[in-house]
């Protein structure tokens, strides 16, 4: 850990990472700076006026509407994180401990699902769940009557799409930290008299925490940028920050406002990452050199 912190002192390393650093600086920080600059302008007749004032920001902070959408986004993101972790833990545990023989096949299938374009998958859900879709058709033929399931076009459907599309991140991060747990630790717990459930609770779960935290952070940050699911599956019933920003740029053609809202979302993401990082460091420092 101490060595990692000193990496910036290593000139050779700095030189070696210079191309990547320059690339990141140019294509990441410069646009971010431009976005920040843009948020201090105003619009007139759908054109950006270089006025350098704080009007847009006052607008952002005084309109509760924007913040209720932000809150809705964070709530959805947190719900998504919770669901992803709850679903991924048993899946990853089964992958590591119960499905040794088919482990690689299952991993390949998850990767295939993961790499399939999100737009296709999301519309796939619509085709499947729609009132005239496959599932309703089947339920109708076995006698559940028309529209047995009417679960599309509401916030729940948005959440379903989000969890579905983001699940692989938590499955794989948790899988990796579970796979790293020494089998002997589990045996040692059994040997000391612990039941399987107790062993999971006392040994497996605490040791999988790095994966849970990493996966949770990834899913949370990615959830903040979700717009496809809320549009296609939520049917606009659950406006999310990303959709708000898209509309502000494209429909309302208010670029300064869009830029300001973008910065708000980025700030939420950065704060979350920072908080999770601090939590992680704290947990690690308690463990000493481990």
């Amino acid at each position: 850990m101490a060595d990692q912190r000193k990496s910036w002192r290593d000139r050779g390393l700095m030189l070696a990472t210079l191309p990547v650093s320059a690339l990141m600086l140019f294509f990441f920080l410069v646009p971010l700076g431009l976005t920040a600059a843009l948020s201090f302008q105003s619009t007139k007749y759908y054109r950006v006026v270089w006025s350098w004032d704080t009007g847009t920001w006052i607008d952002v902070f005084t309109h509760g509407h924007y913040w209720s959408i932000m809150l809705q986004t964070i709530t959805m993101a947190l719900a998504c994180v919770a669901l992803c972790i709850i679903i991924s833990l048993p899946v990853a545990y089964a992958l590591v401990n119960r499905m040794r023989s088919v482990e690689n096949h299952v991993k390949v299938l998850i990767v295939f699902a993961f790499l399939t374009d999100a737009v296709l998958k999301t519309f796939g859900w619509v085709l499947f769940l729609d009132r005239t879709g496959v599932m309703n058709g089947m339920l109708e033929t076995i006698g559940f009557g028309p529209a047995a399931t009417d679960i599309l076009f509401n916030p729940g459907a948005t959440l379903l799409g989000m969890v579905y599309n983001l699940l692989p991140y938590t499955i794989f991060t948790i899988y990796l930290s579970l796979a790293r747990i020494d089998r002997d630790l589990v045996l040692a717990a059994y040997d000391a008299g612990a039941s399987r459930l107790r062993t999971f609770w006392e040994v497996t779960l605490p040791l999988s925490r790095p994966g849970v935290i990493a996966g949770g952070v990834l899913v949370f940050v990615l959830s903040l940028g979700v717009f496809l699911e809320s549009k296609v599956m939520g049917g606009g019933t659950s406006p999310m920050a990303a959709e708000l920003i898209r509309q502000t740029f494209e429909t309302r053609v208010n670029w300064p406002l869009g830029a300001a809202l973008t910065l708000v979302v980025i700030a939420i993401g950065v704060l979350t990452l920072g908080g999770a990082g601090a939590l992680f460091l704290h947990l690690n420092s308690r463990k000493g050199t481990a």
Partner: protein
Amino acid sequence: MNEKTPIIDARSIDKFYGGYQALKQVSLSVHAGEFVALVGPSGCGKTSLLKILAGFEDLSGGSLTIDGHDMVGVPSSARPTRMVFQKLALFPHRTVHQNIAFPLKLARRPKEEIDRRVGEMMELMHLRAAYATRYPAQLSGGEQQRVALARSMVSQPSVLLLDEPLSALDVKLKKSLQAEIKRLHRTVGTSFVHVTHDLEEAMMLADRICVMRAGRILQTGAPSDIYFRPVNGFVAGFIGETNLLPTRIERPAGGLRFEAPGLSCAEPVLGTDQAAEGLEAGEAALMIRPEMIVLSKNAADDGECVMEGRVEEFFIKGASIQYRVNVPGVEAAVVAEVPGTSQPPADVGDNVRLSFARADLFVLHRD
């Protein structure tokens, strides 16, 4: 539990992994308070046997009782055994105190009792009280070892199983922990079953040694039996170096007559107790331990048996000097270990006489 009933009674245990048979008809009994070592090269089945005793593996055939209870189908959490793992398996996310207390916590002992017994264990294992709040990664290898022993012993199991816990340590630390384990065994009086590939370690620690090879127990006996009365060349060669001379034996009533090329004895007859069990007349191997041989350049101090040869090489080992002597008629160089002196008694190329007492010979099965 009286002295006669074994605390572990394993009978004719078979263990299959798929089509591979790891254990073949293994029987082992361990008495209360006894220290038994399972020794053998890797893949001999010693760890499989230990895992079966611990309950991590099921047995494919045979029977196992521990403490008078049938153990078939009993999970490790319900067995009166504790294991010390090869890689220790200390919980990295728990302090030394929490690690040692874990078995007591699972047994729902009251907090005062847990604290008291953890304290006692730490004291017994010479762990400083200040270590209680440290994490395993903050301790040295030897200290971690002591914590692992403390965790295994804290709930006073009937049997402690040790799976080569010393194999990863450097020689000096290993010696001090061997002494520690021996002391712990004397103090607590629990039965220990110790798996190791190091027969020297087994000789130092155990009351009884089981030498295993390819899933079978070759010989079970006291350390001196294993060393001086090995059943075959494999057991004999497992510790240190030894000389095995091909021989032909005859067994007239009440004695044993042998004949080995390169070896001349005034009276080539041995007592019946100087042969491995079940040895028939015919081809066999004659064993003489290197340290039993007297090496000299003159014929004056001959023993009962003599071999003559030429020094091929010698190694000064400090406490002793090892000679390798080519004896006409004997294929492998004969090894003699003589007490170390500043003046080696013979040089390379010298003709020497190797003499020894008849009583130091032992006849065993040829491999």
